């Protein structure tokens, strides 16, 4: 199966004028783009602004996207260029750090700086999401947990996971789906409750 099939299906719909399909693309890649942009700008709020700008640029440039490369590769290039331009225009030097860095001191230092720029409700919600996802994963049966983690962390295909776990591809698909459903059930409560709190605060 060719990679990027779902993205291309959505991209084609956007190119035909379906804006709702672009929402799906943004939902899928917003976290990755924000994480990428945070290598260049100082704080998450600014990173979200830059990510938003990058998505709008991507939307306007989508008619020129021919599918010769993967959509996310193309999107990431736009995001990096947008972030660099933002840094130059604000006359700031880029802050280089790796979110997955093993350097604990650097990570804690950055965390301390980021804490000041976050809104309280955003931090509470984020912490709640993180702890919910972690506890939900912990509660999963072993086969479901292995399947979802190999998929999300390693980026293995269903076929590779099936070979690794010694089961059919259909079973892998089913396990990953059931793992997501179990986490999503818990997460839905947080989102609905969190969004409700945010509206009350707003």
């Amino acid at each position, binding site marked *: 199966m*060719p990679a990027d099939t779902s993205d291309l299906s959505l991209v084609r719909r956007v190119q035909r004028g379906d804006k709702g399909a*672009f929402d799906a693309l*943004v939902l899928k890649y917003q976290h990755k783009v924000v994480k990428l942009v945070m290598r260049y700008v100082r704080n998450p709020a600014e990173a979200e602004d830059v990510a938003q700008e990058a998505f709008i640029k991507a939307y*306007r440039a989508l008619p020129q996207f021919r599918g010769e490369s993967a959509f996310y590769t193309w999107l990431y290039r736009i995001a990096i260029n947008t972030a660099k331009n933002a840094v130059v225009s604000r006359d700031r030097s880029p802050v280089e750090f790796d979110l997955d860095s093993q350097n604990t001191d650097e990570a804690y230092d950055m965390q301390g700086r980021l*804490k000041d720029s976050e809104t309280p409700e*955003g931090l509470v919600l984020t912490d709640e999401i993180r702890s919910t996802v972690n506890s939900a994963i912990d509660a999963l049966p072993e*086969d479901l947990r292995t399947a979802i983690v190999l998929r999300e962390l390693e980026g293995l295909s269903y076929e590779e996971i099936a070979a*690794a776990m010694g089961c059919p591809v259909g079973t892998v*698909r089913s396990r990953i789906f059931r793992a997501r459903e179990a986490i999503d059930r818990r997460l839905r409560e947080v*989102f609905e409750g969190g969004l409700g709190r945010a509206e009350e605060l707003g």
Partner: protein
Amino acid sequence: MNNEELDSQLSAMFDDELPEPECELLARRLARDEGLKARWGRYAAISACIRMERGGETATSVGATRASARQTGSPTGELRPARAEARGPRMRLNGDVARRVSRMVAEEPPLLAGSGVRRTVRRLAHPAISRRWQPVAAGAAVATAVAASAILWLRAGSPDAPIVAQAPIEQSPIGAATANRSASPRVAPPLLHGVTPAAGLARAAVHRNAPAPDSFVVPPAGPASSFAPPIELANFVVAHSEYSMPLVRRSALTALVADEPLTDDAADTPLASSGGSSDAAGGASASASSAASAQGHEAANADTSDRSNGSQADSPH
């Protein structure tokens, strides 16, 4: 299709593991179904959360995890999650970027096929760009209108202009009678002098439509030429020439002579319209006399105008 099957397909689509035909159908539904879209967004949040929380330990342990999974099929203890307080900067996961982008995209014009054209139209349709180009566009429109008016005015005054308009004369009995009266096949040459391409094409079309060469006639002189001065004006200029400056008087007289309406004799001379040679002047004077004789048919008008001109000549201004 029940909801579970639909959600299963959505999960597979999120992983790029859904066959393309199903993917097309589900993409269409995903774009419209807000509930499905929200679930899709939560799948993305789960994915981001797992990567953010466990990326550090996975970088070192994933190889062992995969090996263990292959050997036992039960990697118990290999993938214990790192705690939330352990590592990594905080990141909001509440989908705020998606909502903001969705609002902004809703205000954007829809994308159309034909990207280059669409892009140009969109850029020009942007309010700031549109405001910037408005004065330029207005200036260009005014300049175009002036140029078009000038061209139309010049073409209306040129000797070529009446040809197309009077082409039907060729087919009329009057035109045939005029042709018989003149009985001369050489009537076209003056009209070929100094023609514009458009007039040439029009004339070529007339020639193609002409049934026979001898039926092509020059229209009779008179009001056809818009530059031909009325007799009253000619008389006025002659009568008042002593009160005008020599240079102006000469210019006026030259213009009168040069723009004399075409008669048969004048039309035979290729340079008559240019007014640049003595032959042309001679032809013009001859045409002036013939024009005067032609106007003699309108006795009442001519007498009246002569009298009025005489009275005008007697009374200096």
